[in-house]
């Protein structure tokens, strides 16, 4: 990358910091109203209790648990995308790692909030710490999620340090107040000395390795929340890997959408190119195929035996009340999007984005199906059906709106593309000879 391109890159990465325009305020305003509506609904729920939700005396879980699993899953996708690209030293990663890590951080915060919304006595939330029972999957859960939260913050922060130094040097004393103070303090005196570079790369390397088992642990524990019960449709050994794969799939889809959105609005097309979407769509394709394989494996083994516990669940899914939804998910949320990204041709970015929307929406809906149906179909006890209320819808929409809003705020303060990452990738000597370079890692477009 020559000097001119590098300067252009830095300019694009930095030009939206501290800048707001009418469009920014319009979008942020709409999102903020949605988030406020969700907060209002939560206040209403605290005041009136869970009777204002679709959860009732026998229907124990609803939208909130679905959202919890879904948003934490997205977070996992963001973290793992970045970590895998770093570990495989994919050179094209530089413009998108920041967006992926930011998505991981924001969705994790939203996901954690989603589960607190579900707790019927939030005034006693400290009991989780005071009387923690280690045998409970929920205890595993909050330990895993809090650990992962710390890991995600560090994973977002470490590569940001040099960029904070750039911000500090670029804006200098021109930026007063909190932002200037934050740049000065958080950049930890970054000067880019070889010693600092070495320490930073070491730290990022450790975190990129650590974040993968951490994220797998978090999502496995989430799956065990269901799988350790005796409920048909939940009590399955494949649940943890299935959840991990589902998380990666929905996470990569969301990362694609986030990247597409910021690319368009922030005008990053020069550096985030069709190539990035093609590579990410490969990732989507591979994960989607893996997910189909796991799902078929689960339903084939359970459906072949038709045990008393699982048969009603499978019947509800395949031919019963939920069959239209389930088959719509299979076709619209898996087959169609994978077909969209599998073929080459024009409109690559648009196709990848449509596929990502379908996959992300489909994965939310699949979570809804697998969490809700087993809980409602005991062999003896056909409980009445769960119907979400406006409170749950408002909180769900508010949580979803909080993600783009959080990202907009995040990239109001921080560079949207990693400057240091690009210098690291471009500045590094070229160890791979032509002909030996895998197309996936090198980039050919």
């Amino acid at each position, binding site marked *: 990358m020559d000097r001119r391109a590098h300067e252009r890159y830095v300019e694009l990465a930095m030009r939206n910091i501290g800048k707001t325009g009418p469009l920014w305020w319009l979008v942020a305003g709409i999102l903020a109203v949605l988030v406020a509506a969700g907060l209002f609904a939560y206040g209403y729920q605290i005041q009136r*209790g*869970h*009777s204002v*939700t679709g*959860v*009732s*005396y*026998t229907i*124990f*879980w609803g939208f909130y648990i679905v959202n919890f699993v879904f948003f934490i899953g997205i977070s996992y996708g963001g973290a793992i995308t970045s970590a895998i690209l770093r570990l495989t030293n994919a050179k094209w990663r530089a413009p998108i790692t920041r967006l992926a890590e930011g998505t991981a951080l924001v969705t994790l915060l939203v996901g954690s909030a989603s589960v607190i919304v*579900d*707790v*019927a*006595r*939030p005034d*006693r*939330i400290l*009991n*989780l710490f*005071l*009387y*923690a*029972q280690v*045998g*409970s*999957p*929920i*205890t595993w859960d*909050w330990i895993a999620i809090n650990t992962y939260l710390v890991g995600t913050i560090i994973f977002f922060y470490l590569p940001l340090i040099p960029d904070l130094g750039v911000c500090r040097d670029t804006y200098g004393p021109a930026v007063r107040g909190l932002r200037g103070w934050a740049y000065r303090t958080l950049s930890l005196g970054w000067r880019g000395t070889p010693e600092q570079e070495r320490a930073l790369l070491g730290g990022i390397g450790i975190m990129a390795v650590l974040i993968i088992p951490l994220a797998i642990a978090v999502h496995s524990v989430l799956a065990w*929340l*269901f799988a*350790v*019960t*005796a*409920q048909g449709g*939940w009590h399955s050994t494949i649940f943890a890997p299935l959840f991990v794969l589902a998380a990666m799939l929905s996470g990569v889809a969301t990362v694609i959408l986030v990247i597409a959105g910021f690319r368009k609005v922030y005008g990053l097309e020069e550096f985030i190119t069709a190539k990035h979407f093609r590579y990410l769509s490969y990732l989507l394709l591979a994960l989607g195929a893996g997910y189909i394989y796991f799902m078929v494996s689960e339903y084939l083994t359970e459906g072949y035996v038709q045990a*008393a516990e699982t048969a009603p669940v499978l019947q509800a899914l395949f031919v019963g009340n939920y069959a239209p939804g389930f088959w719509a998910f299979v076709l619209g949320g898996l087959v169609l999007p994978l077909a969209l990204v599998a073929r080459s041709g024009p409109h690559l970015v648009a196709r990848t984005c449509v596929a990502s929307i379908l996959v992300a929406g489909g994965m939310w809906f699949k979570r809804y199906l697998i969490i809700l149906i087993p*809980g409602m179909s*005991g*062999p*003896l*006890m056909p*409980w009445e059906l769960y119907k979400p209320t406006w409170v749950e819808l408002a909180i769900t929409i508010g949580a979803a709106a909080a993600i783009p809003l959080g990202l907009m705020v995040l990239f109001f303060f921080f560079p949207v593309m990693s400057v240091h990452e690009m210098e690291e990738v471009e500045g590094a000597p070229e160890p791979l000879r032509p002909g030996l370079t895998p197309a996936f890692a090198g980039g050919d477009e």
Partner: protein
Amino acid sequence: MASLSRRKLLGGLGTGAGAIAAAGLAPIRFEAEAAPVPAKKRQWAMVIDMRRCDGCKECTVACQEAHHLPKSFEWIKVHKLQNRRGQEFFMPQPCMQCENPPCLRVCPVAATFRDAEGIVLVDQDRCIGCRMCMAACPYGARYFNDVEPPAFANPFGRPPTPQFPVPQQKGTVGKCMLCVHFTGEGKLPACVEACAMYALYIGDLVADVATNGKETVRLSKFLNDNDAFRYKEELNTGPHVYYIAGHGQDLGY
């Protein structure tokens, strides 16, 4: 020092392995036939004779009155079922008071516990309302207090306890506790007292006795003579509620 602790550790492991082996090899038998643990005063149990139940739900109503529950809360729920020939029969179902309660293990704050007399209780002062226990219970025996219980002037003037969780606390989970507040005073549980068909028995596995308020039986003999079974025995939850079939229904489900 190191060798001592190692020996201790190995000894501990050996004991544990022995216990596991013993548990694995022991023949499956009714708790009533097992040698009672001397330290235990009582082990409460219930017998439900489905031959007698006519599905009148007097037990459910009496339970709701005794615990001031909303009408939708059926701590003892009467299922209307059909046998293979399509004939109806009824299955009252309280909390099974499992020896190995799945609800207890999953509670993140240990609000559910099992007392020395085999009753699974809920400390509603500690419960955070996550409903994990409801997900874990294979019997659907637990009820989430999504609404405030009916207005209730506490005539006894005593605060709610796990043994006497009246009134229920909103936002927590409650369930049948075999009316330990009555049995402790030598009275019958509300459902047993209310059953006009004498289909419900309350008993003690240690003293090996059970009563429906009219007749008293020797528990182990009664269970054996009538081919009693436990609901979802295959889950190894070890219910303290025994069922007597007799309508040609499938055993053991």
